[in-house]
């Protein structure tokens, strides 16, 4: 069990029409790993993350979650398509994703957002789901906001609610897709500190981010993506302190 990687990606390719976005990515994240994925705009980092829960269908390659590979079949017009929808849905329910634009469900209160998936996907009892959700909302500092609607909250609060929504499914791994990019600068800190808390618990995370200082601080492993390939990867101190590739050097100096 301990030796089975939480997420294993082998030779992943993704192509939109004639545009090759991912050109053979292999990446392994073990239990408790916190992998930061960095890279310039258009480098494919969001696509890579979205392939992990099959929000994007890979063109070729293999992805296994907790040792279980997605069952895919060849699509008629090239590429892969989902062979077993049930399997994908079951795996997705255990891969919490935090989106750049929060994507809370605005017709439900914060609490209802958090209990939605436990009740309606995982089949948890309502009382239990509410009890857990209240704990989680307290944890992200939104205990007093549980009965309000997302539209009246700040971006930072919405993103913290979205994180609570992910925690409510007790995810095998959490996928963060630029969680602070849509936030006003003064709200970035509150979200990062919640993520930092989770990192301290050694939760498995994949984090696409532009917050380099944060990545250096919390990540156990940093992946630098450029033009659809992993150009360099390693522990944060090496990536940020002693970058080898000239592109990485340039990237770090340009965002620092």
């Amino acid at each position: 069990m301990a030796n089975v990687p939480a997420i294993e990606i082998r030779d992943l390719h993704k192509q939109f029409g004639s545009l090759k976005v991912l050109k053979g990515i292999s990446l392994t994240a073990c239990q408790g790993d916190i992998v930061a994925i960095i890279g310039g705009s258009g480098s494919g980092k969001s696509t890579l993350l979205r392939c992990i829960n099959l929000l994007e269908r890979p063109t070729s390659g293999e992805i296994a979650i907790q040792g279980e590979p997605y069952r895919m079949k060849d699509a008629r017009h090239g590429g892969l398509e989902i062979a077993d929808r049930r399997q994908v849905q079951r795996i997705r329910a255990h891969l919490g994703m935090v989106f750049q634009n929060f994507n809370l469900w605005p017709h439900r209160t914060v609490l209802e957002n958090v209990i939605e998936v436990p009740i309606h996907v995982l089949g948890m009892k309502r009382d239990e789901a509410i009890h857990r959700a209240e704990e989680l909302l307290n944890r992200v500092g939104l205990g007093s906001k549980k009965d309000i609607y997302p539209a009246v909250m700040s971006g930072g609060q919405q993103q913290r609610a979205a994180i609570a929504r992910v925690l409510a499914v007790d995810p095998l791994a959490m996928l963060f897709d630029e969680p602070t990019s849509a936030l006003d600068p003064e709200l970035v800190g509150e979200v990062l500190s919640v993520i930092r808390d989770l990192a301290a618990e050694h939760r498995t995370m994949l984090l696409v981010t532009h917050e380099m200082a944060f990545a250096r601080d919390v990540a156990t492993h940093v992946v630098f993506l450029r033009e659809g390939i992993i150009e360099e990867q390693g522990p944060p101190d090496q990536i940020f302190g002693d970058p080898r590739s000239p592109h990485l050097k340039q990237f770090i100096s340009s965002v620092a």
Partner: protein
Amino acid sequence: MSDPQTLASLTRPSRTPMLTKLPGLLEPHRIILLLIFIVGLVAAIQLMDWSWLPRYLPKLWEGLQMTLIMLVSSVVVGFLIALPLGLAQVKGAWPLRWLATGFCTVIRGTPLLLQLWLFYFGLGALFGQFPEIRDSWAWDYLRQAWPYGFIALTVSFAAYQGEVMRGAFAGVPHGELEAAKAFGMSRRKVFSRVWFPRAVHRALPTLTGEIILQLKSTPLVATITVMDLYAVITQVRQTTYLTYEPLLFLVAVYLCLSGVLIVGLRWLENRVPQH
């Protein structure tokens, strides 16, 4: 809205606490409007002839019921038809999409009165020619006028609301659906838990307007002898030779109905704050 209050509190500071506590209806300009309304009402009651009213009350009550039945049934059934119409236009395979778009375009592009007459005089006469239909249980209904009124109103509402639902389904932000998908919801769950309720919610403001319009379309059924409120009032006018009193009464009733509908639907809308 708060201007009269702030003004009053500036000029008469000693009474500020009381004034700010006044309910909205008692603001000065509203009191004046209310007075004008009351004067008009009293004048209408005193100076006009309302002696017919008690006599016709039972009939008017029946007419009102018919109006409400026409409205509620056509809105409910029409809305149920509008959902697949809207969905087919957004996500259907091309034959379905084509059919739904064609239906909405034809119905919205022709007068309701014409549709009503085509159903009643066209279909009604057609059905009568078939002995199989004449002898069946359905003839008990098909020889009456109201089923045709109901069908025409329903079809019309479905077409207008179908177009609204198309926009509402298409307008639900993709990210909200993607989040549902990313959490492992099946297509059906994504629809029932997120897409559908969000679309309805987005369509509510327009739905309010459509329902009011529908209320005001119901008198058309009087032209095919359905005894709705308008038809009863026409009868009153013909037997009493009064013109204004019955029509004013009609105005008052439709206004009240619209008011109740607006308040009720507004309440529904405001239960969830929008962006």
